[in-house]
């Protein structure tokens, strides 16, 4: 192969540095504007927003405190391992004393850059991540020493090839059928391979002791996470957007500190429960969103619409891998031996996932059961089924979920959108109509 072929083997083109810098600074400015706007809007919607949220507002800034911390850690020799989907074994990364960060992209503007490389029909999250890489926008993506890319869907599979033009990418392939006996064996092998790669990159062996403390650390994070979601079950003590932001920041913040701050937030919220200080009237229509991930900051489009609409709605729960699914399931260790801990981690990441990229012996009923349970626990009035155009998997599961919810007389509305700001007006009318319907349903 000639050297010209070698260049051709890459997906990502050579872009003049000047152009990259221009685009990046413009999108970065927009991103920071959108971030602070979202936070302003959240503050406006709930005048008595908990004080503990201030910390999370700080972490929400991609280009602020957290970026500086990770950069400083890197200078001290720590390794940063980025990951896209929720299957990367964070416990292993922490046990090897590396820093895990989720690098999926939530910027609308970079998806247009990604359009130069891949067709517009491709999932916008993928296109946006490609674009972010092309202009070096994401601090976490740029700071990653390696990226764990799980080959969950078609877009992700090709994304790992594209990203490997500029970063070392480690693939992990979750078997599409979660629960056949062969699946777990294969998944364990994948995890073993990644564990070895992590150890090689960091130069640290993942010992039993370190793995145990990493697992316990994440169990404490899960405890705080669940505590927060439990507080959303009854009368509204925190707006959905605030909770979603807290949830999301767990994917790139320092786990120990995030846990502590979330516990503080929960303490504040529990006081409000006692004082009956509600974030919005208790009869506000309670909405649950399920579907493709809504990544901060630009994808606050729908949550903003729901919680600022007339009539106002509140997001009480969601089935999104960018929010309520993140830390919901704990790693349950039986005997604290390396063998059992490894199996526990492997099972937690594969078996609990509700992503529609899977099917299973009972036809992926896990997701449906999860939804049905949350409908009851959170007293959900209506469900919005949110799909970014291009996601076949979520779009296809809609049919069955609609039928089941129809049986249960729970209103469900299919809302698809793109990584664009242009359809906010159209979405607004539909969201408001849906909320009107829910309100009428509650009153009539």
């Amino acid at each position, binding site marked *: 192969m000639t050297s010209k072929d070698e260049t051709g083997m890459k997906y990502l083109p050579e872009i003049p540095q000047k152009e990259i810098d221009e685009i990046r600074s413009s999108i970065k400015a927009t991103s920071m504007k959108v971030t602070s706007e979202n936070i302003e809007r959240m503050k406006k919607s709930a005048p008595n927003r908990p004080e503990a949220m201030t910390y999370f507002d700080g972490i929400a800034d991609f280009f602020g405190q957290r970026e500086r911390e990770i950069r400083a850690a890197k200078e001290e020799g720590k390794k940063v391992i980025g990951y896209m989907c929720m299957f990367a074994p964070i416990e292993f990364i922490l046990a090897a004393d590396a820093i895990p960060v989720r690098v999926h992209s939530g910027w609308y503007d970079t998806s247009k850059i990604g359009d130069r490389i891949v067709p517009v029909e491709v999932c916008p999250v993928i296109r946006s991540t490609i674009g972010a890489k092309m202009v070096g926008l994401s601090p976490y993506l740029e700071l990653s020493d390696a990226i764990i890319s799980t080959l969950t869907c078609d877009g992700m599979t090709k994304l790992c090839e594209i990203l490997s033009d500029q970063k070392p990418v480690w693939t992990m392939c979750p078997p599409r059928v979660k629960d056949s006996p062969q699946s777990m064996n294969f998944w364990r092998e994948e995890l073993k391979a990644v564990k070895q790669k992590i150890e090689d990159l960091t130069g640290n062996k993942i010992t039993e002791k370190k793995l145990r403390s990493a697992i316990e650390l994440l169990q404490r994070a899960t405890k705080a996470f669940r505590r927060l979601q439990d507080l959303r079950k009854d009368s509204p003590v925190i707006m959905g957007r605030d909770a979603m932001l807290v949830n999301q920041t767990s994917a790139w913040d320092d786990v120990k500190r995030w846990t502590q701050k979330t516990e503080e937030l929960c303490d504040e919220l529990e006081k409000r429960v006692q004082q009956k200080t509600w974030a919005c009237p208790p009869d506000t229509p309670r909405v649950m969103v399920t579907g493709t991930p809504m990544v901060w900051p630009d994808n606050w489009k729908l949550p903003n619409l729901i919680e600022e609409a007339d009539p106002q709605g509140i997001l009480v729960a969601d089935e999104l891998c960018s929010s309520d699914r993140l830390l919901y399931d704990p790693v349950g260790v039986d005997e604290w031996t390396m063998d059992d801990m490894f199996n526990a981690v492997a099972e937690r990441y594969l078996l609990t996932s509700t992503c529609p990229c899977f099917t299973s012996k009972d036809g992926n009923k896990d997701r449906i059961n999860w939804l049905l349970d949350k409908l009851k626990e959170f007293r959900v009035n209506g469900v919005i089924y949110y799909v970014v155009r291009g996601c076949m998997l979520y779009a296809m599961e809609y049919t069955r979920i609609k039928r089941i919810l129809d049986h249960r007389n729970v209103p469900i509305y299919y809302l698809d959108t793109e990584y664009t700001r242009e359809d906010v007006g159209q979405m607004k*009318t539909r969201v408001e109509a849906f909320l009107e319907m829910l309100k009428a349903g509650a009153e009539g």
Partner: protein
Amino acid sequence: MITAGIDVGTQSVKVVVLKDSKILSREKTFSGFEPAKAAEQAFEETLKKAKVSRSDIKHVTATGAGAEMATYRDSTISMVGADAKAGAYLFPTARTVIDIGAEEARAVRCDEKGTLLNFVVNERCAAGAGTFIEAMARALEVKLEEMGPLSLKAEKASQINATCVIFGESDVVTLIHRQEPKPEIARAIYDAMADRISSMVYRLGVNPDVALVGGVAKDVGFVASLKRKLGTDVLIHDNPEFAGALGAALVASKRAGVSN
């Protein structure tokens, strides 16, 4: 109690004034480039017609794409909510209401009280709204109001393959060059649109009786095609384009009563 409803659409503004659930007056103005002004104007005109002053109006509800332009409104209601209310008011037996406006088509399921039970909206594709007919009429070189009666003359429809307004237009031009009879082309155009509308309604579920409101309901050609595609009869009222404003006015009555 006197209330008013205003529908600020993309093409025109409609206002309805209600007194104790009876229509006092209605008025329609074209939105033009300044919909806010048009909204103001239409409101004034309707009040004059009804011989009432602003202070007589207990509550004004606005709807439509430009509802925020009605600065004097007391509240807003979504278009589908207005459709449901208007549908139940005009046709007590209607349980499905289809509203086709200039740029957007909607279908709504409601009960006898006009409660919005479910809805489906088609706003992305203009081939299911009024502007499609306008564009096709231009291509056929026929006046808009003549196209309907023209299509009724046809025994069958020409073949239009395109599913999209843009390609549909070139399809029509091709058919004209081939000297296909105009009535048949017109009927094909209406059939294509009715096809799109009915597949949208099927997503919602067809619950008889089915009512049709919105400006396009005045088009006899479209109504005939829709009845064929849906396989049911379709209820139509005079002044169908005022359904949105009427629905908004009904909602205003309810809200005025509640706030008292």
